[in-house]
């Protein structure tokens, strides 16, 4: 990812917004001693993580290490069995009201976009603002158009998802999540279902978003993206957080053997 423009973004405003929040906030996401099992299978083991507002975290690790499961716990698409997850001062428990509150503040982008195929792009974006946030339709549409412009596809607003390319669909999915004006965005391998030529258009949108001070958790193997925008890179293996470091240290000076091994493999090609 040798994109000179994105390198600039990193050094200027990106870092400052994160540091501005430091100190006064105990962390918009707090995960404490969290465990999760699928049946008898211990997927996530004693995870601890605090994310400050405006921080950008990249999570990487080998396949099956529990990255998806982890970020899906943060908006309760998966249930954890032990420990605490506190998002924006609301603890995720069985209480359905807590879950709803958290989901309203947390947007998610999926590997396979998961757009609603029976609704147009604009309707996809307006659905939740209208029905969950009770925004009047006109207002919701105007705001959706702004986000569609931000992801550079306002001209596709009246098409159906099935008529768009993968990259366009993923950008719609990002816009749809942003329309809820979330405080946190989760990305689960947003580019890994895309053809190489479309990856950049999605990453550019994500980099722009990172520049705007959004709190982001991204599961991705795009190491260029991690280097450019991440405040911290987290390496997971076997359901554990093995290593956690700022990108520069993470890539140039990994501490753990497993991290070194992983980086060797992923940077080999």
């Amino acid at each position: 990812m040798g994109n000179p423009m994105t390198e600039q973004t990193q050094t200027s405003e990106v870092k400052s917004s994160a540091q501005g929040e430091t100190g006064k906030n105990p962390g918009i996401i707090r995960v404490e001693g969290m465990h999760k099992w699928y049946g008898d299978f211990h997927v996530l083991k004693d995870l601890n993580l605090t994310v400050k507002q405006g921080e950008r975290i990249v999570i990487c690790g080998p396949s099956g290490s529990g990255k998806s499961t982890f970020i899906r716990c943060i908006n309760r698409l998966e249930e954890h069995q032990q420990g605490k997850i506190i998002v924006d001062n609301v603890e995720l428990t069985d209480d359905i009201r807590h879950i709803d509150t958290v989901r309203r503040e947390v947007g998610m982008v999926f590997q396979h976009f998961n757009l609603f195929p029976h609704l147009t792009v604009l309707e996809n974006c307006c659905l939740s603002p209208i029905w969950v946030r009770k925004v009047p339709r006109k207002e919701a549409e105007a705001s959706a158009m702004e986000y569609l412009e931000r992801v550079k596809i306002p001209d596709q607003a009246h098409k159906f998802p099935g008529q768009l390319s993968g990259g366009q669909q993923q950008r719609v999915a990002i816009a749809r999540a942003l329309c809820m004006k979330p405080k946190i965005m989760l990305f689960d391998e947003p580019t890994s279902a895309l053809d190489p030529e479309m990856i950049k258009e999605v990453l550019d949108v994500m980099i722009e978003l990172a520049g705007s001070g959004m709190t982001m958790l991204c599961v991705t193997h795009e190491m260029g993206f991690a280097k450019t925008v991440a405040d911290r890179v987290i390496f997971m293996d076997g359901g554990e957080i093995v290593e956690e470091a700022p990108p520069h240290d993470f890539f140039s000076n990994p501490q753990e053997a497993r991290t070194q091994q992983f980086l060797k493999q992923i940077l080999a090609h």
Partner: protein
Amino acid sequence: MTESTMKPPKKALTPVKWMREHLFSTWYNSLLTVVVGYLVVTSVGPLLNWALFDANFQGADASDCSGAGACWLFISQRLNFFIYGFYPDELQWRVDIMFLLLAVAFVPQFIERFPGRKWFGIFGMTGLPVIGYFLIPGGNFGLETVESTKWGGLMLTLILAYIGILASLPIGVLLALGRRSEMPIIRGLSVVFIEVWRAVPLITVLFMASVMLPLFLPEGMNFEKLMRALIGITLWQSAYMAEVIRGGLQAIPRGQYEAADALGLGYWKKMGLVVLPQALKLVIPGIVNTFISLFKDTTLVLIIGLFDVLGTVQSTVTDPAWQNVAVEGYVFVAFCFWIFCFGISRYSQNLERKLDTGHKT
């Protein structure tokens, strides 16, 4: 999806070329064409003679029928009975209004560009049954009461089918959702309901509704026979509908549920706005199939003494005053059913085309 002014080349076919391509392309196609052609030519002539050229249309009673062809005057003479049953002549305008409203609600559905046709359809599903509920039985607004025992003919068939269809769809949706619910009690109840009703023949349901239901109901609470039949048909139909819809629900990928969850839509909004619109669209052919078979199954009410269109015709063809008119009678019944079932089928095809958003998975 860019617009282009270039059209695909049209295949120009002369009649001879067309025939060679479609009728005589291979030796067995040629043979088939000849055989089928022969059968058509030899059978269409006599059929036309019977149905049109030798048929009797004018007259007052059976003696005006020559017997050489169809005795259609039997139909026209008894048409009133076939349509309204025993509904009093002077009150039949009430039924006519309902027929008219039915046409107003549904004819626009077949005209692609009819303005506001959606609203006509919505009226057909909401206003129409409400008006019918007051108009047909009467008893309010100064309307004279007409006992449901007097209803019959095509009108009764339409009432049974219409209410059966209208009520079984939402109940079926709820049952299908219940069967996929994460709550064990709701899931269990739905499964039991569906499996019990689905495993019983409609005839049995109707018998039980008319004979056994009164035994279980508390003293003084008694529905009319028609009401009992309607409840039986609706519940029975709902069980079928539930399984058709469940098929659709199962075809919706998990990602759709997750995306709706992640956007904070609650259970009912997730189902109503995201999952059901897609699931129902997928199973339109199955739903329509169920509707059509219900429409025809309503004829079974004959055995509990309700006279639907088939019942009225059947009771007339055995009338000594009319002899050898059974074929005409049944052709008429078949035609009535065909018109409505074909209409339903055409409408559903329109709907499928309209709902196609180019998404194929």
